[in-house]
Each structure stands twice: as C-alpha cells, then as structure tokens.
C-alpha cells in the first residue's frame, strides 16, 4: 500500500499506456477481421484457410513477435508501433474465426428473406448480417480483450513500458507492493475492457433483451 501511495501517478500513466497498447489493436484487429470473416463465410472454401492461418498466428510466442516486428516493419526497437502491430496480429488471430462464425450463425430463413428482398453486398452485411452476429462477435471480442491485456505486459521485456514494467521491476528488485499492484492493475484493466464490451454489445442488441416468444 505504501508503495502504491507514493507511486500511483506512475501506475496511472502505465495503465493508460497499457490500455492504449491493448485497446487500439483490439479495434484494428476487429476492423481487419470483418473482411476476413466475411470472406470465410462467402466462400466456404476460404473458411478452413482463414481459421487455420489465424489459429497458427496465435501460436507465435509474443516475445518472438515483439522482437521480429522492428525487422519486418523497419521501425526502431523501442517503438510502441511494434507492440501495436504485434497485438493486432493476435487480435486478428482470435477474431477472424469469431467474425466468420458470427456471420454464419445468422439464421437461414433470415438470410433467405434478405436475399429475396434484394439485399446485397455491403448493405446486406451492415444491415442484416453484422447486427445479428454481434452477440457472437462480442463474445470473441471479450476473449481477445482479456488476452491482449495479458500479452501486452510481456512487451516490457523489449523495453516498451506499461503495467508489465511493474512486474519486471518489482521482480528484479523484490518489491512486493509493486508486483501486487502490477497484477491487480492488469486484472482491473481486463475487467474494465470486458465490461465495456459487454455494455456495448447490449446497447447494440436491444432486440435480445425482450421477452422471448409470446406463445
């Protein structure tokens, strides 16, 4: 507690940094996953490819990815962009499949009706398919959010500071207060993001809150 009392400004700063490094890739990853998921649904042959490739991406160790990024991107080793891009890769790894599954989960009779009414292309995706896929996509987004918050902390090993720095520093210097603060702050951040996504999904799906079927 003493440690936190004298360092809370640093903790807030690091938390802000952590949120940025985990949150921005979440949004970017979602944006990239939408077309991929749509492709996987549209051409069923693409589905296994999308799912397998994205699954493989997730197996790359995060430390390795953080180290490779500057080489691939030509950025400086301490540039936070490395982390943003790497985290985006992980987000896509988790979300591409979720988006595809979400779009596929749209009931067949709804798809048929949409077709029969002349819904096509982007208008169909935005007007019919995406809104109905929100529950599935939100579920995947929650997993990705928590996963991002956790993986980002590893970035302190390549010198990009965020809450993970507390863990590294606390461990090196055996400061229990710093270690515990780091862990708790990560948890709080993960819960916060999770809650935000949950609220967002609820706001987007008012139709799911109504009582089901009046007989």
């Amino acid at each position: 507690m003493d440690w936190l009392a004298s360092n809370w400004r640093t903790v807030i700063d690091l938390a802000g940094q952590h949120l940025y490094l985990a949150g921005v890739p979440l949004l970017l990853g979602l944006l990239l996953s939408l077309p991929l998921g749509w492709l996987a649904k549209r051409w069923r042959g693409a589905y296994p490819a999308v799912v397998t490739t994205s699954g493989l991406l997730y197996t790359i160790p995060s430390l390795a990815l953080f180290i490779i990024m500057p080489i691939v991107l030509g950025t400086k080793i301490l540039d936070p962009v490395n982390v943003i891009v790497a985290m985006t890769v992980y987000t896509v790894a988790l979300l591409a499949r979720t988006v595809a599954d979400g779009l596929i989960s749209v009931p067949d009779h709804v798809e048929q009706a949409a077709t029969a009414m002349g819904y096509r292309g982007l208008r169909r995706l935005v007007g019919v398919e995406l809104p109905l896929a929100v529950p599935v996509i939100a579920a995947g987004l929650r997993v990705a959010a928590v996963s991002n918050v956790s993986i980002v902390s590893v970035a302190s090993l390549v010198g990009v500071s965020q809450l993970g720095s507390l863990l590294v520093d606390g461990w090196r210097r055996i400061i229990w207060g710093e270690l515990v603060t780091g862990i708790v702050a990560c948890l709080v951040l993960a819960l916060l993001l999770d809650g935000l996504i949950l609220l967002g999904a609820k706001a987007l799906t008012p139709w799911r809150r109504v009582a089901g079927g009046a007989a």
Partner: protein
Amino acid sequence: MIRFDGVTKQFPDGTVAVDDLSLTAPTGKITVLVGPSGCGKTTSLRMVNRMIEPTKGSISLDGQDTGRMKQSELRRGIGYVIQHAGLFPHRTVLDNIGTVPRLLGWDRKRTQERSRELLERVGLDPALGDRYPAQLSGGQQQRVGVARALAADPPVMLMDEPFSAVDPIVRDQLQDEFLRLQDELGKTIIFVTHDIDEAIKLGDQVAVLRVGGQLAQVAEPSYLLAHPADDFVADFVGRDRGYRALQFQPTPRLPLRSERTIVLGEQPAAGSGAWLLVVDEQRKPLGWVEPARIGSRGVEDADLHRGGTVARAAGTLRGALDAALSSPSRRGVVVDDSGVLVGTVLAHEVLSAIEDTDRPERDEEDPVHGGAVALAEDGA
C-alpha cells in the same frame, strides 16, 4: 402473368429438381404449386425471383425474360413470404415491414406511414409496431411477413409454405384473411404448399407436381378433384375428394322446412319433439335442446347442444351436407347471409340436390392442363 417455359433445374450433384416445367400463373390469380417433398415446388418458386437459376428454359414476368433483368431490381418487385416468416429479429415490426421501401429509397416518413397502414391491413394491433419479432406469436409473425412482402406494393407475390408452421386454427384464420386480402389486392401469386387442402382452399388454379419435378396436372380445384389426370394425382388429392369437391358446388335451391324455435329463457311447450332449435332475439340459431331434459323451466345457455354446424343458404353443398350430418336432430340448420334462420334441411334432401348437379367439366381434353384458369392472350 408469370410464365414458365420448359424450365429445368438440375443441381450440380445431378439431381433433377424441376423437369421441363411449362406453366402459366395468370395475372391477379393465385396459382398453387402442390406436391410431396422433393417435387421441386420450392425450387420452381425460387427460380421466379432467381434465388435459383434455371438450368434450361426461361421464366418471364409479363412477357419480360427474368433472366435478363437485374437481380436485385427483380427481387424488390416481387413480394416474398416464407415459412417462419423470416423476419429480421433485430428490427422492430414496423422496420421489418418497411424493409423493401427503404431499399427502394423511400424516405423514413413515407416508409413509416406505409408500414403502419399495412400493419392494420393484415389485422394487427398498431401497438405491436414497436415490438421485436420475438415478442410476437407465430401467427402474428406470419402476418408481419405478409405485410412486409406487400410493403412496396409489388404486383407479384411468391409464398413458400407461409402458413404451415402455425397451429391449425390460426392457419385457418390466416388463410381466410389472406383470401380476403387477395380479393382487395388482386396480386399475381404463386403459392407453394404440401397440403392439398390448403391448395384447394386457396388456389384459383392448382398445379400438382410429382417427385422429380414433373407437372402432373394443373387445373381449377373443383376440376382437379373431379378429374384427377392419373393415379398419382388421384392419390394425392385424397380419398375424400368427392366430399371435398362439394365445397365448390354452390347450393341449389334446397327444399327447406320451417323449424319450430324457442328463445333462450323460454320454457319448451309440451310436445315440441325430441329436439328443439334455440335462437336469439334476431332469430339467429344458438343450438339445439332436448325438451324432455328441460322439464318445466326456462332453457339455459348450459342446456344448448352446439355440435351442429350452420350452413349458409348461398353457401356450398359441402356446408349444407355437413350441417345436416352434424346436427343432433339430423335437421341441418340453414341461415341467410346475415346469420338469420331460414329453415332446416335433411341429409337425403341435400344428397338429391347433389345428384342433380353436374360435375365440373371442360370441353378441352388435355389431361394435364384441363380446366386451367382462362388466360388473357395479350399477356397483360
């Protein structure tokens, strides 16, 4: 007018769903495609709005080849109703109804007005407009489905088993209201069902398809029942087709007898016979009572035997015969169009009337297309 011209659909796996179908659905009429599963009726329907493309042959709408029309434009000009309604669960009832108008670029206000108008037209409470589909019963959803199909006032409607997922009583209501609506709107409709009773009730013309997608017969319902083209059609239209055909026979003048009646609350006079007909103040029949069981008190509501059906004098022979058969007194109750008692009739009297009627006949002797609805030659 929708015209199928030698239309064949073969799926990539080799299955022939529709085999050389030539059929005309006349303007302003209901054409029902009926047959067992696998007869290609739904495939035929979906080829009209090109949700499925034919392998061979062509389909034309008022003389225009649909194969040359832009898909989305073609579809927005055709109302489509499916089983389970296929409503968009994330949109309110009003927004569901307004789907096609919005796609056609109507502004929000005009769309809303049109949607409200249609909501009432299909017999739904305007208060349901802001609900989501999940809050409606199956029957209500199906009505919304019909309203949605009608929203942009398309001249053509395709209906794929729209009433088969609701219970029989609701189905009956929906069918009646559908016919009433069609009377007002006069759309060109192709209606798919596997239920021959529904086909016969709704169709101006009924096309029976057999497995493998071949047209077995197309005719007016009464003709179909009286002259099935072959064993398959005969079997499909059912064993009691003779009785059901009576529903297309208007009742000739029946030898009605006057009936002694009693008003609710009155005491039956002595010697009123085994059964006495109870009517209300306007002489509308309420039911039968057995005077012997009443004794010397007034007739109460609970005494009424309600098993008998009531036939309209201007109704069908089926109604008249059923009234006689279902009446506990064996005297079938016949009323006028406003429901006021006209008299009663016995089953054998209805039967003699039936014997005096002709079965529906046509001069043409084409067994498949016999008795088809007369078509306008100009294709209008």
